[in-house]
């Protein structure tokens, strides 16, 4: 179906007057949005700054270069899993199985790489086990959509079932249950670093790509006769990103260098953000989360979107599982357990993704996981702190994030209906 082609279908071009906002008007509009409750990532960025200030006053180690590099490596697996959780929350579903699905994928990979076992090559094993992850998601999604069982129950069964599978797989081949990874490439995923030079190249390419994309978008809008953002704002954003990138790379280079896994994180964030906000598939995910009935009437295959989202969730859990296994250089029966699942869901929610569907961004996985990992890291540096405090503090931060979300949503509703 095409757009109205009859002469009356569209207004004459001349009717549309283009008035580009000035910097002042743009900032005013932004401030109005903030005041009416559209805070975006502001609360969490202030939260991260507060965390940095508090812990650096308590411990000299917190803001040191080695700890910064460790923070990235510690949070990498969590961020990757939380990206998948963001997608599930976007369609107002839940996936409680991501922790153990990540372990199933990590353990399967380790078993297939064993020199005393199949001894397959890493470039064959990794795609294979990631497909296994996606297949697990397809199974969950199919049961949720076709049998109309709530995702909470289906993935709770997955939580129990896949934890059993992890236990069976790990104890089947060893007595202790711990299986070491010997493949250098796989170990290198989470344990190797870029040289100083390539660290800088990464920073320059990332900032350059961002600038080019912003300018291309501006040009496309300008050519279509639509209002564009002031050039000053775009250059300020690019400069801010450049400063962050330069500081991060300089700090990392003063230690061991930029971790290789940072490239994987960056790639995953860019790729999934693109899918979520720039493709038809992503648009339909938001529509299914916002109003499934409207999506259905618009001709969107709602069930297919739901199944695909559960596949994304399990796939990203698998990617995270590979990174976690790589960092530990081994897997054991405890893989995927502990607080991994709860931290992944908490990361997505703290980052600003709504549990009620339709609201949230992929980058919230990064921001929320950074908050959780830096709390974990920072509280671990304070001597003589009872370990229970860590959980209590994380709980309070999670609660605060949900309260901010609920408060801003109500604010938006009350100010929206003008």
């Amino acid at each position: 179906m095409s757009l109205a082609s009859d002469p009356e279908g569209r207004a004459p071009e001349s009717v549309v007057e283009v008035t580009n906002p000035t910097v002042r008007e743009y900032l005013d509009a932004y401030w109005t949005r903030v005041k009416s409750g559209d805070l975006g990532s502001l609360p969490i960025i202030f939260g991260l700054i507060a965390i940095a200030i508090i812990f650096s006053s308590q411990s000299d180690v917190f803001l040191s270069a080695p700890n910064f590099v460790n923070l990235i490596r510690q949070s990498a697996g969590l961020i990757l899993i939380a990206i998948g959780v963001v997608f599930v929350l976007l369609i107002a579903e839940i996936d409680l199985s991501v922790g153990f699905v990540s372990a199933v994928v990590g353990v399967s990979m380790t078993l297939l790489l064993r020199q005393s076992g199949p001894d397959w090559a890493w470039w064959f094993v990794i795609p294979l086990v990631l497909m296994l992850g996606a297949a697990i998601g397809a199974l969950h999604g199919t049961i949720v959509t076709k049998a109309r069982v709530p995702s909470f129950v289906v993935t709770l069964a997955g939580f129990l079932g896949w934890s059993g599978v992890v236990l069976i797989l790990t104890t089947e081949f060893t007595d202790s249950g711990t299986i070491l990874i010997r493949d250098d490439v796989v170990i290198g995923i989470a344990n190797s670093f870029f040289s100083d030079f390539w660290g800088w190249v990464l920073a320059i390419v990332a900032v350059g790509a961002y600038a080019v994309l912003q300018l291309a978008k501006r040009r496309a809008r300008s050519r279509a006769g639509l209002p564009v953002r002031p050039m000053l704002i775009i250059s300020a954003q690019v400069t801010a990103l450049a400063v962050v990138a330069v500081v991060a790379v300089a700090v990392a280079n003063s230690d061991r260098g930029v971790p290789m896994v940072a490239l994987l994180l960056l790639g995953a964030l860019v790729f999934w953000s693109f899918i979520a906000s720039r493709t038809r598939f992503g648009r339909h995910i938001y529509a299914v989360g916002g109003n499934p009935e409207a999506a259905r009437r618009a001709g969107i295959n709602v069930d297919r979107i739901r199944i695909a989202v559960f596949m994304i969730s399990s796939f990203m859990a698998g990617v995270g599982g590979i990174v976690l296994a790589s960092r530990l250089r081994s897997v054991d029966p405890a893989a995927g357990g502990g607080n991994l699942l709860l931290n992944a869901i908490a990361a997505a929610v703290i980052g600003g993704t709504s549990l009620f569907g339709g609201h949230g961004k992929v980058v919230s996985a990064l921001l929320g996981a950074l908050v959780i990992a830096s709390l974990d890291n920072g509280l671990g540096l304070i001597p003589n702190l009872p370990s229970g405090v860590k959980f209590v503090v994380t709980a309070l931060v999670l609660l605060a994030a949900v309260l901010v979300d609920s408060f801003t949503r109500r604010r938006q509703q009350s100010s929206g209906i003008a």
Partner: protein
Amino acid sequence: MSDTGEPILQLKGVSKHFGAVRALVKVDFEVRLGEVMALVGDNGAGKSTLVKGIAGIYRYDEGEIVFEGKAVKIHGPSDTADLGIEIVYQDLALADNLDVVANMFLGREEIRRPYRLNEASMEKASRATLDSLSVTTLASVRQTVAGLSGGQRQAVAVAKAVMWNSKVVILDEPTAALGVAQTRQVLDLVRRLADRGLAVVIISHNLHDIFEVAHRITVLRLGQRVARYEASETNQQEVVEAITAGTVESVPGMTT
């Protein structure tokens, strides 16, 4: 509007049964380009069933659908859309979390190169369609629907319907949830659709609204068409009588 011109959409003797319940009994209905046809009747008169048959949600048990002079079969909602018939339901079916542009193009997004949404082109087309309908109350087509008033939402839903080369627009209770000023805006909008040459069917309980915009009125009662009026040649009193006491050929359950 004079009685000349071929109807663009015509139902001939359509019936629909749900078990023993006869929701529609040999109903004739038609609408022409450039006119507003009101469909009125009490609750349970068969208005919704009639529209759902056109929408492809139900299939009539008997009777014929004629579109542009040709008998057509409607097997599903996509057939209706392909013919150029758009239906704006009472609940509007907008996604609150998406902006106006995303809602207007939902399910029919424009794609540039392999996979990317063509946001600039969609925004421009949305703005142009809203402007052509003289919808001026929207500050930005990039604001989410959650922040719009009832009248603005209705306007977005109608604009969404007319953007797709549609020839017939069916509006289900478009003013039911609106205040006075917003009802005014929507009725103006309905009239503009007809002025642009579209065929408009409006379902409403509010006879005052109907007499403001409709050229002709079809009255359903107990699943049958009991009257058809030129709006200029009748009054509210007469229509109310038809709705509540119009002569039906057969009353379900009554053997006369």
